């Protein structure tokens, strides 16, 4: 099998830069460079005297190993504490608000200037001019830390913007945290998400790239471990050029802050909680989260842009190994910004026992018509008590699974495909073993298996809340999800009263054929049939972005060129508290793996439409809407 194409979408398209190609440590000619260390952000740089923190940093070139330490390395620039080892991310600067920061930054490069951003007082309405440090020079930068928050600093050897730095500069970044005065110190972890990629003159990124969390790509990222009931605090900083919708398996987390290089909005602990399982993180943005694991097992926290977690091509430009039998999906077939979290402790909520009476469903993964080995066509049929939907091909779109809140269910996933698969119940709060990451979910001693061709796997869970969720393959995601292995998982209070004419699923995914990928599917079609609505009636619109690589699509309900209004009612399957459930313009930008529910009621007859566009407004697919009296 060919390695899946990696679509690295740069988030901005500012002026082209001088883009130097990569230099590889393995070429045997360059003098040996020092190995760059991985910084887990548990230590802090600088020395504090009174209210002044003095930090001495320098920039050098070193050899970085974003995969395993034994895999080929690559020569990049990195920061170090002066005289110390190079680090990726750069040294963490962490101060109490009001601290005066005195930074001495030395440019140890021979020919290039170092341009340093992010060393200034927060918040800042606009970023001050960066500090230019000529080769061999040192500059003192003094500033007061300013308002508490999650920030970062970064460097470049040109006047490039953060996302458009030359590949060699892309790992020049470090965290800058300002803590509130007197704030309780909490145990937390800080992750910076970086991107290394070569970019052509036409700003097309190369397929050879690395996306890393704290300097490593999965499965070489740090594994976190917590006890049941621990309060997990994470700060996530996106210092690369890609959008990362960060998804936590099996749980909701509370977003505690959102910000960027210049400012941070910290939501007070007492504010109305924003509970999500996926948070879209644009380039240069930050967020922090709190999560209290209540079920033991292994859980993933990862970017849901599948092109970011597909195995990348070898970093030294060599040909990828031929596709081989996979024994461990999670370790062998995923890469990039993924962190594995192990939760240990005695789990009181053994919810999937054998003796519970369950509703029994069979979800059959099938080969659909119209595919071939290069671009397979797969889909699902759903069977309950001998009734199968759909009874025959086509299996596009996949049937929605409608479950009852609080009712235990057993879903037997039957694999009729010629390759292994496994299904993830995206957003469902369930036992780790049934979470569907083959080779990882469950425990290390008893991981969840991949489902071999002809085999089946019984997933058991009891959905605790009504909402909009997703089921999708978590094996060879780029290929299998594009083939069609995704669908809507809808949990309602009473399936008997579920009315699909008023409760409308709008599942956006990638077309099966590569030639069609300048469009998107809405419910399995690039030319979806017109939706018929009636004036005055009310509709629940359930938007799902399960596209494999478009993390910034916008969905708009339009009458002519005018947005209408709708009321937000849920995000990621979690009902919004009343204070957040407000009427607003009928437009939403969605990252992959996010779901949004809106309530909409047309007020006048006529023609409307749903437009799905990319971030800059190019139309991807349009669904006509006819509003009848």
């Amino acid at each position, binding site marked *: 099998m060919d390695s899946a194409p990696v679509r690295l979408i740069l988030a901005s398209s500012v002026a082209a830069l001088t883009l130097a190609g990569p230099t590889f440590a393995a070429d045997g000619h360059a003098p040996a460079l020092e190995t760059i260390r991985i910084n887990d952000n548990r230590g802090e740089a600088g020395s504090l005297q009174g209210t002044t923190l003095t930090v001495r940093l320098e920039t050098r070139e070193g050899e970085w190993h974003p995969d395993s330490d034994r895999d080929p390395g690559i020569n990049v620039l990195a920061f170090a504490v002066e005289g110390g080892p190079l680090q990726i991310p750069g040294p963490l600067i962490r101060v109490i608000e009001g601290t005066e920061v005195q930074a001495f930054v030395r440019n140890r490069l021979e020919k290039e200037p170092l341009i340093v951003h992010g060393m200034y007082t927060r918040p800042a309405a606009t970023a001050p001019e960066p500090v230019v440090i000529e080769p061999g020079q040192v500059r003192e930068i003094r500033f007061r830390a300013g308002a508490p928050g999650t920030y970062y600093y970064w460097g470049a050897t040109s006047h490039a913007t953060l996302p458009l730095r030359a590949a060699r500069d892309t790992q020049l970044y470090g965290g800058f945290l300002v803590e509130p005065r007197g704030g309780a110190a909490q145990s937390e972890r800080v992750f910076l998400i970086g991107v290394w990629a070569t970019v052509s003159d036409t700003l097309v990124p190369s397929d050879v790239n690395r996306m890393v969390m704290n300097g490593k790509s999965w499965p070489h990222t740090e594994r976190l471990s917590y006890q049941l009931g621990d309060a997990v605090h994470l700060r996530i900083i996106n210092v690369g050029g890609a959008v990362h919708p960060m998804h936590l398996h099996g749980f909701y987390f509370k977003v505690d802050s959102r910000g960027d290089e210049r400012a941070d909005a910290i939501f007070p602990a007492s*504010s109305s909680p924003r509970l999500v399982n996926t948070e879209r993180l644009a380039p240069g943005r930050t967020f922090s989260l709190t999560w209290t694991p209540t079920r033991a097992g292994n859980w993933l926290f990862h970017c849901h842009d599948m092109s970011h977690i597909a195995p990348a091509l070898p970093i030294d430009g060599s040909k990828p190994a031929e596709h081989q039998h996979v024994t461990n999906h999670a370790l062998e077939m995923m890469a990039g910004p993924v962190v594995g979290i192990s939760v240990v402790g005695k789990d009181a909520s053994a919810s999937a026992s054998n003796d519970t009476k369950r509703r029994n469903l069979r979800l059959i993964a099938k080969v659909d018509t119209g595919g071939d080995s290069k671009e397979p066509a797969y889909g699902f049929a759903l069977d309950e008590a001998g009734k199968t939907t759909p009874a025959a091909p086509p299996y596009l779109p996949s049937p929605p699974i409608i479950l009852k809140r609080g009712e235990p269910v057993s879903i037997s996933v039957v694999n009729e495909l010629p390759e292994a698969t496994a299904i993830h119940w995206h957003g469902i709060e369930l036992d780790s073993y049934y979470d569907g990451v083959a080779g990882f979910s469950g425990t290390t001693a008893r991981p969840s298996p991949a489902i071999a061709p002809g085999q089946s796997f019984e997933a058991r869970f009891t959905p605790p809340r009504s909402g909009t969720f997703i089921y999708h393959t978590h094996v060879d995601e780029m290929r299998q999800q594009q083939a069609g292995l995704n669908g809507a998982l809808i949990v309602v209070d009473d399936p008997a009263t579920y009315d699909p004419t008023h409760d409308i699923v709008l599942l956006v995914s990638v077309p099966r054929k590569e030639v069609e990928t300048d469009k998107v599917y809405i419910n399995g079609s690039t030319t979806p049939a017109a939706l018929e609505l009636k004036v005055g009636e009310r509709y629940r619109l359930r938007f799902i972005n399960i596209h494999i690589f478009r993390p910034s699509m916008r969905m708009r309900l339009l009458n002519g060129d005018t947005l209408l209004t709708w009321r937000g009612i849920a995000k990621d399957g979690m009902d919004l508290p009343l204070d957040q459930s407000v009427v607003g313009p009928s437009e939403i930008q969605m990252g992959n793996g996010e779901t949004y529910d809106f309530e909409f009621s047309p007020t006048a007859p006529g023609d409307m439409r749903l437009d799905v566009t990319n971030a800059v407004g190019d139309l991807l697919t349009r669904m006509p809407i006819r509003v009848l009296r």
Partner: protein
Amino acid sequence: MNRSVWPEVLPLAIAMSGVLVALTVAGPQWQPQTSGVASRLRGVSAISNLVAWASGANGTVLRTLNGGRTWDVLHVPDAEQLDFRDIDAMSERDAYVLSIGPGEASRIYKTTDAGAHWTLQLKNTDPGVFLDAMAFWTPARGIAFSDSVDRQFVIFSTADGGGTWSRIPSSTLPEALPSEGAYAASGTNVAMFGAEDVWIGTSAARVLRSSNGGKTWSVHPTPLATGSSAGIFSIAFRDARHGIIVGGDYRKEQESIDNVATTADGGVTWTLVRQRGLSGFRSAVAPVPNTARTWIAVGPVGADRSDDDGRTWTALQSDGFDTVSFGRRSQVGWATGARGRIARLDW
């Protein structure tokens, strides 16, 4: 009822998290409106600056879609004898109304089509149960509070939009004091915030509290006056920590002794306001959205405002009202009261 501000917009949030911009102290502007009814309206629930619902005696339910220029009377079948002391609107179409009284008079109805149809969701049969008020975290999840029976608190909860109302097991609730209940004077005895927090102010001047959606409860004393006609009449929170209880003695409307207290720890401890307190008995209190620490309290003989989270109060020029509600993130609210009185407040 909305009681919070959720800063979505970064610059706004920054402004709010940093030095607070000086707030105009101009509000509120009171605008008397015509309800078209003569019943006492002890329930009001605002959605936005255009949409609000109100309820009261004689089965009265009202709704406006135009900011109160006109109020439509909605008919709840066979409810003419009922006194709807609480209404919680979820949208311009969805609303719950609660009627008070012993036995079968205690009911909850819901409409999902702007009052064209009403579903009787809860009809009490226990002669000891007397519903007082309700509140909702989301359109599907809420609770309703009754006077206690045999030293046991009676709280009903729903997670499916009122399709089923289940009594919360007594084993998860503290013991009630003899005859402890709530004054059904304004429909504001139950306060909620966010997704899990709920507080109930009782006639015995205690606060029942749950921070996990009603799974477990604790009870906390407060310094408000109690008696056969005194206690907590209203409770509200502007976030998960800052709340205010108001009350007094409804038979002594002009008096103001030990009738307002504040909390900054989520309702665990309450501090009585001893100086510059309320200027009389007050039956409802609410935070003003989009302000930092501004609140309003209304009662049958007047109203007060506070700009410091309830520590000090200033009397407002106002008619008497029983209850008050602001729209979500909106500085437009409504107050309602006796003889069908409605006024709009533009803060």
